[in-house]
């Protein structure tokens, strides 16, 4: 069925189609319409899930973890402060190996309050063991939620996953979306069978404490789950394409990179704008390309190494700020492509924070800057010099 959906309603519809059994969430702009629609689905009876209106995001994620620990398929959604508040529990979810899927509507972090698009919230959780997808369209949002369950629940993986979408640009914007039927989704996504679900018939403790002699091996095992995710992602995408005929390109879909002199690497809706900019610059005779970072965790090191062999310059646009030398994406790209033999020039650009619009001129400027310089520097794009804010 073809219809128009906001990114948020693409999330809630996907959760319904995925036959999620327990939803536990707390409201925060601009996530609210995800859970409001789920509440309506549950109230009307079309979604037979347990719906828990908890009193904080911290409790929302704990409730999902506990429900998942007994083998229920769970979903939650949040943004910004809510995601930050969940931080401790993000570690709990990955450490306990529960395959929760969470919608994250990427929103700037306070202070000051900002409800607008910014990836700092999710990027700042990159240490927590969650798979992270960044979507550029509402179709991709719906499809990715379904893929995320299949990936997270893969018995080799068993890690939770975030499906990120930009605040307002996707969450509240209508786009045409092809919605699969329940039968099609059921064929793609079987019911969850958690290998280690708590059950009084085989009592055990899930959690425990570990002395130094054991802890590292546990962490190594969690890391191996993420490595397994890197391998399994391709299987999930192929299976999805076979069933639904849509291919979102894996972890690092490339556009016009084959003979590019410079490639822009970025995430989220900026990738859409970048694609248009690349077309326009190509028409002007400039050999540029786009590498869209669709999957941030697991980090697509192999895909980047491959790209690094073909292109001499990578301009990394971070729509987040994390301190250190350059943004998180810049740091990780540079880390992956540098080698003793050299490797491409990587330049970092901090842009679009707090909902600042990433207009085509800005992205064009970034690519032109990357073509014109030879040092691996970092700059902030679009800063109004002189005063920090308008009088």
């Amino acid at each position, binding site marked *: 069925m073809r219809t128009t959906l906001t990114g948020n309603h693409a999330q809630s519809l996907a959760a319904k189609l995925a036959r999620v059994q327990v939803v536990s969430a707390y409201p925060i702009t601009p996530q609210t319409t995800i859970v409001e629609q789920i509440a309506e689905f549950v109230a009307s009876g079309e979604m037979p899930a347990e719906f828990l209106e908890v009193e904080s995001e911290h409790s929302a994620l704990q409730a999902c973890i506990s429900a998942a620990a007994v083998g229920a398929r769970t979903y939650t959604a949040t943004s910004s402060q809510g995601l930050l508040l969940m931080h401790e529990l993000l570690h709990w979810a990955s450490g306990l190996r529960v395959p929760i899927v969470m919608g994250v509507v990427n929103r700037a972090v306070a202070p000051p309050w900002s409800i607008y698009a910014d990836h700092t919230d999710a990027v700042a959780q990159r240490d927590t063991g969650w798979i992270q997808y960044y979507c550029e369209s509402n179709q991709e949002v719906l499809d990715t939620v379904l893929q995320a369950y299949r990936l997270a629940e893969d018995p080799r993986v068993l890690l939770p996953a975030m499906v990120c979408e930009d605040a307002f640009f996707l969450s509240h914007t209508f786009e045409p979306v092809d919605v699969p039927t329940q039968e099609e989704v059921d064929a793609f996504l079987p019911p969850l069978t958690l290998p280690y679900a708590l059950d009084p018939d085989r*009592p055990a403790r899930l959690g425990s*404490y570990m002395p130094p002699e054991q802890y590292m091996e546990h962490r190594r095992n969690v890391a191996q789950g993420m490595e397994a995710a890197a391998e399994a992602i391709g299987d999930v995408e192929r299976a999805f394409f076979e069933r639904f005929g849509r291919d979102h390109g894996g972890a690092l879909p490339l556009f016009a990179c084959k003979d590019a002199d410079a490639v822009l690497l970025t995430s989220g809706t900026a990738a859409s704008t970048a694609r248009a900019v690349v077309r326009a610059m190509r028409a002007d005779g400039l050999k540029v390309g786009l590498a869209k970072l669709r999957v941030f965790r697991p980090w697509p090191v192999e895909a980047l190494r491959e790209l690094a062999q073909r292109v001499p310059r990578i301009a990394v646009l971070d729509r987040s700020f994390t301190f250190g030398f350059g943004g998180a994406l810049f740091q990780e790209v540079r880390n992956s492509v540098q080698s003793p033999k050299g490797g491409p020039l990587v330049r970092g650009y901090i842009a679009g924070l707090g909902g600042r619009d990433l207009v085509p001129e800005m992205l064009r400027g970034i690519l032109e800057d990357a073509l014109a310089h030879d040092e691996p520097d970092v700059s902030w794009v679009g800063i109004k010099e002189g005063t920090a804010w308008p009088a």
Partner: protein
Amino acid sequence: MARLTIPERELMTSGHLGCPGCGATLVMRYVLKALGPRIMLTVPACCWAVMSGAFPRTCVGVPFLDCAFEATGASIQGLRAGLDARGMRDVTVVGFAGDGGTADIGLQSLSGALERGVDAIYVMYDNEAYMNTGVQRSGATPWGAWTTTTPAGREKGQEKKDMMRIVAAHDVPYAATASIAFPEDFVKKLEKSRDIRGPRFFHVLAPCPPGWKYPPEETVRLGRLAVDARVFPLYEIDHGRYRITRKAGRRTVREYVEKQGRFAHLTEEQVAEIQRRVDSRWAKLESLEKATAEVHA
């Protein structure tokens, strides 16, 4: 055969790491006896998070889910929802947390769960301080008690947080106090609560030898003294009706505090003050019992 006054079946195994004479282990032992094997425990950071020993050991014969310190209330909610989704409606969810994890850092999630009417049992075992981390004060530490963060010269100056009143304010169907010295009373209350739907809350006194500074063999005696001196009354609030389950008053506050090193510094005036507060609270409890006598349980 021995005349048993509580169920014989054991679901707790020996070999746990509880201190000799640990009151908190008796709380769990009685909970397991009364509620049986078709339960799921969820336990935050507290003494009971380390009781079983290191991975892969467990000292309880029921499922046990570790949860975040603040979040026992949310964890019982999630367990109930997950079990219902899996069709396991006969399995009872039991949150089991210390006083710190309930009255302080866990208060928000408990309140949320109670307000939402979670169908679960919550047991707060109260050793009146953060014992697992080495005896720091909690909101449940009694007035005048020594702890490492209320040391000599600045012993706890605030009254003990009244969790029963806080829980009662949520209009839960059942809440009760208990003491490890009266396991028959505790088991009876637990068995009664099994058949009630909605939130059921237990505040159980669990004397702690290293934290309260007394020799371990006195644990049950102190648990009895606290009740009989009216310091820790045994009562239940059953659908709004208050009922004292053990008449008390044959012992004094002095007899209770003089057995504990954490109260060794108290002056006569302070002991008298505690006695006054205890008497006043008991009188209030008796009037609540009278006032709610007509309420249908």
